[in-house]
């Protein structure tokens, strides 16, 4: 029974981490392929939040102690917080730039 549980947990971990990686890859491709800075920003946030979140979720299933779970959650929360703030701020800059380009100003 315990063995079966372990297998299921392992399988779930694999799935979650794999999904997380997929989001990271998608984010990277988005950063490479999207056409405007604001679109690219959009792609980055997906990778930041979901990608890391899924990887962390996969790792939590394997964590042996609550302290470790707590640490994983802290790390994820930190990245969420700083990613949200930084993308917003970079977004402001990118937005200003787009407006400047549209109104045809020269630097």
């Amino acid at each position, binding site marked *: 029974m315990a063995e079966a549980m372990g297998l299921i947990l392992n399988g779930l971990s694999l799935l979650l981490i794999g999904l997380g990686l997929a989001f990271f890859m998608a984010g990277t491709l988005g950063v*490479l392929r999207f056409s405007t800075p604001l679109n690219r920003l959009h792609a980055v946030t997906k990778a930041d939040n979901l990608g890391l979140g899924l*990887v962390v979720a996969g790792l939590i299933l394997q964590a042996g102690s609550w302290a470790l779970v707590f640490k994983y959650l802290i790390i994820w929360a*930190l990245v969420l917080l700083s990613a949200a703030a930084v993308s917003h701020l970079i977004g402001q800059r990118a937005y200003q730039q787009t407006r400047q380009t549209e109104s045809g100003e020269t630097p």
Partner: protein
Amino acid sequence: MSWFYQAAALVLLVSMLLSLFRVARGPSYADRMLAAQLIGTSGVALLLLLAAAFEQSALRDVALVFALLAAVSGIAFTRVAKSVKE
């Protein structure tokens, strides 16, 4: 599971490599900076995977510092960049 974590780490490293193309190509400052941001987050995930793969808990502290300080250069950029345009 260790093999899987290692393989996943490798995938992340490749994805970091790809993001570097955006750093190199730009064209705007914001583009380069946000690609660096993505590399930082990938680094956090990579470190957590390595920590699990080799059971080195110290690496989680490194990941923690990564996560904490990833914001510093991004914020510094938005705050001190003299011009948004190239």
